[in-house]
Structure formats: C-alpha cells, structure tokens
C-alpha cells in the first residue's frame, strides 16, 4: 500500500500532536494557584508537658486511607510525641471496616473518627447534635474497650455551598436563607434527588425549591467547575473540602440540623488511657478544642491543592494553635 511509505510522516504527526496535548495539559496545571501560606515556625514549639512520660506502652496511631484523616492522625502523633509519649505511626490503614477492626483487636490504639459515620458503622443512628452523637458513639464502643474523647468543632459532612458574590448579593449565611430564592440551580451528586441528606431533606426540612437540579459528581471537580462557572448557584460539597478555602466559597450553616454530626474525634483504646491517665486525655482533648472546619478546609487545601507536605501542615497548625 502506498500509505506504508508515508507511515513514518504520519507517526511524526501523531507524536507532535501528542506533545502539543501534553504541553497544553501541563500548562493547565502550572496555571493553578501556587501561593503557599508561609507560616513562620516550621518546628513544633514544644509544649511544656515535658518528656517526663517515658515508661508505658507505645501508642500506635492509625488513620483511614484519605489525606484529611491521615493529617489529623499526624497532628495527634506530633502533639503526643512532643509531650513525650512513645508513638508509632500506622497511617492510611484502609477504610473503616479495616481500621475499626484493628482498633478493636489492639493493632491500633488511636485513630481520628467522624462521630456520625462511626456511630452508623456500629449500628446506631446519628443526629445533627454533635454532643449527643458523640455520647451515643461512646456508649456503643465502650464494651469493646474503646474510649471516645471530646469531639472537635471540625466536621466533614455534606455542606451547602455558594459563591461569595451570590452570598453577598442575596445575603446568605445559613441554608434557610435560601428560602424564596427559587430561581437558583442546585448541583450535586446524581443520587442527590433521592437522598434524605440532600434534595429530599432540603425540600422537606428547609422547604426549599430550586429552578433545576443538575446532576454532577460527589463533591468533585465537576461540581466546583459548575459553581465557579455559574452553571449552578448552589452546590453540595463536603464541609472540610480544601476547595472551599481555595475558591473562597461560602459554606452555609446547616441551621435546621439536616446533616448528621460528623465531628472529628480521637477514639482510643481504654488500656492506653488507663496506662497514662488524664494527662493523655487532656493532651488530645486540647487538640480537639482548637480544630475547626475552616482550619481543616484550609489544611486540606494546602495538602490537596497546593501540594504541601502533610507533616509540615500539621506542625504549622500545632504551632499556631497549641
């Protein structure tokens, strides 16, 4: 065939085209915002609780296999280390079925949990009340020798999000403020119209109605792009998603308590608490007391979007807050 002779030229054309494509692709990526928050103290400022704790069991800290959970576990680890506790890290263990089982049989001693999801896992029914859900979780896990410490204000759950300009224009700060704005388009995961904690709840609990629903993805890039491009005005994202901080979106307060509480909480084996006593509990509760959703979103942005080192991000947060 005649094309044989020209196959070489064709191949070159293909290669050139492919190179062009990759060039476009990388250009796209380097275009993203690379401003990194430069926090001064890179080294953890040693808390005075001191290196007195030397003898006692090593505390094995685990986490679920996604970056936010591993970050919080890293914060626990650094705080305990600087207080002198013997710490072993076993992060990114897997999903809840795996790390919860490891916690129960002693393979792990301490993990950051989300109160609502953990309670559901144990067969309970979470509510939007953080304290009550944490209490129920504590009761549910007590028999297995697991202690639930204080929940942090920080939550990772379904969040209703708008752009800053929409919030300013319509005066939105809570989900119930959306009432009467029936000309807005809502976007979220395709399953949203059939879910209690999404469209059904927004209609029944908040009495909202939207001009249309646009099926997108589960708190992913498509939803963000649609919100940015004004294809939708209201989006369902996860409350601690770094993109909320990165894009300056406004997370509307769930003022009617539609979403079950998902506060981040240290859960720890009782035998470790028995070995070290109140000082360990106080150290971890001090972390929870300071950790907010906005800070978590900001740290998720630094790791997930700006590509910063999780250990450094954790150290910076500790330096600024503890």
């Amino acid at each position, binding site marked *: 065939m*005649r*094309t044989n*002779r020209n196959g070489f030229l*064709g191949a070159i054309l*293909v290669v050139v085209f492919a190179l062009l494509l990759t060039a476009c692709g990388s250009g796209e990526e380097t275009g993203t915002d690379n401003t990194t928050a430069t926090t001064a103290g890179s080294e953890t400022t040693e808390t005075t609780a001191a290196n007195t704790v030397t003898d006692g069991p090593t505390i094995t800290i685990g986490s679920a296999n996604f970056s936010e959970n591993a970050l919080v576990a890293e914060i626990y680890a650094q705080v305990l280390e600087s207080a002198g506790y013997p710490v072993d890290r076993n992060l990114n263990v897997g999903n809840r079925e795996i790390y919860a089982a490891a916690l129960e049989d002693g393979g792990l001693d301490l993990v950051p949990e989300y109160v609502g999801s953990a309670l559901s896992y144990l067969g309970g029914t979470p509510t939007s009340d953080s304290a009550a859900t944490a209490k129920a979780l504590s009761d549910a896990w007590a028999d297995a020798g697991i202690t639930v410490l204080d929940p942090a204000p920080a939550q990772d759950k379904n969040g209703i999000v708008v752009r800053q300009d929409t919030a300013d224009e319509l005066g939105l700060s809570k989900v119930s403020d959306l009432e009467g704005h029936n000309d807005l388009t809502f976007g979220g995961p395709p*399953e949203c119209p059939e879910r209690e904690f999404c469209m059904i709840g927004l209609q029944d609990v908040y009495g909202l109605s939207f001009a249309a629903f646009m099926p997108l993805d589960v708190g992913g890039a498509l939803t963000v*792009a*649609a919100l940015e*491009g004004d*294809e939708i005005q209201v989006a369902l994202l996860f409350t601690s998603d770094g993109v909320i901080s990165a894009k300056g979106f406004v997370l509307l307060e769930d003022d009617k308590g539609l979403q079950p509480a998902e506060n981040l909480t240290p859960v720890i084996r009782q035998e470790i608490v028995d070995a070290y006593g109140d000082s360990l509990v106080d150290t971890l509760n001090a972390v929870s007391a300071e950790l907010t959703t906005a800070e978590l979103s900001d740290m998720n942005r630094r790791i997930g979007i700006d590509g910063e080192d999780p250990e450094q991000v954790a150290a910076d947060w500790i330096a600024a807050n503890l």
Partner: protein
Amino acid sequence: MHFLGEVVSWFLSADNWSGVNGIPNRVWEHVQISVIATVIAAAIALPPALWLGHKRRGGFLAVAVVNIGRAIPSFAIMALFLPISIRLGLGLGFWPTLLALFALALPPIFTNTYTAVRDVDPSLVEAGRGMGLKEREVLRDIEAPMASPVIVAALRVSAVQVVATAPLAALVAWGGLGRYIVDGFAVRDNVRVLAGGILVALLSIGTELLLGALERRIVPHGLSRAAGELVPPPHG
C-alpha cells in the same frame, strides 16, 4: 427471573415515559447530539477526503487522522475541553460532549473516504478523462459513485459509534440515555442501569438499520458493499 421482570416493569411504568427524565425526552436528547456530531464530522471530513483521494495525495494524513482518533479517548477530550467550555460561557455538558463525539466520528469518515476514492480502479478514471470529463466530473461521476459503498459504510460505522458513546454526556451533566446509567449507578439501581443500557443498544441497532437502508438507496446498483476494505474504526 426476578431482576429481568423488574426491568420489564421499568419499561412499562408510565413515570418513565413522560417529563424531562422520560424515555422520549432522553432518546431525543441522545439523537440530537449524535446527529449533530455526525453531520458536522461528515461535513468537515468529506470534502478534503474526496479531493485528496482524487489527487491521490496526502496518504500520511489519512493514517495520522485515524491514528489520532484511536489514540485519544473520548472522555479525555471531554475532560480537557470542559474547563475551556465553562470559561467560554458555553456551559457544562453539551459542547464538550459534542466535541468528543465529533472527534470520534471524523477519523473513520475521513480515512475511509480518502482510501475508497484513491483506490478506485485507475483505468476507469483514465477512461473518464479520455472521454473528456473535467477533473470535477471525474470525481463526481466516476470516483464518488464507485467509492460510495465504503463512504456510506464509514458514515454508518461512525454514527453507530457516536450513538454508543454519547452516554458519556451524562458524566458532564448533560442528558441523553446515559442519564439512566449514571444516575442509576449512583443509587445502585441496577434495573435503571440495565434499562439505560438496553435503550442505548436499541438506538445503536436502530441507527445501523436506518443507515443500512440509506446505503441501499444511495449506492448505485451493481456495486456491492466493499465492507472488507473498511479501515477499522478507533476504539471509543
């Protein structure tokens, strides 16, 4: 067969035959984007392919076009064009999908048309010139009709591929039959997923039959379809 029974009752349910999410609307959206993509691809591919084939020039282009078509997945095109589309104010779903389907449809049409025209028996072309036909008339009256079985077959292949690939549109918030598959999967509703799959398959077969009928009308009698000469289409 409990599951298949549920699929049958899905098709019989009146709810699934009306409104935005009803079968008629979803089929219409699917047909719309598929027809537009295929027609634009044909309009852009046919003239240069016919002319280059007539000149028996640019064989490397024919190979390159079909190779590129094979190399770039439709979904990658959609993902690449999506942010651009949003920035240009063209919205989410329709234009990125249209571009991806267009890019899928174009290579088989271009390459097969080019090859078919180029491979027309040179003695026939020479005979035409000898009878005093102008170059345009050689192409119009000899080469195009002789190549028509392959050209129409290429259009048919492209159209069927486009119809079978258009469900991707649902991943970027557009409609079409992909909505049943994507939305059904999101709520683990296997009945809806299978129903969507069946509808896509039926529409693909319908496209095949329709263009097959067209083929029999367009292709001159006496020219059997030279399907064996068809350059294989890219993978969707």
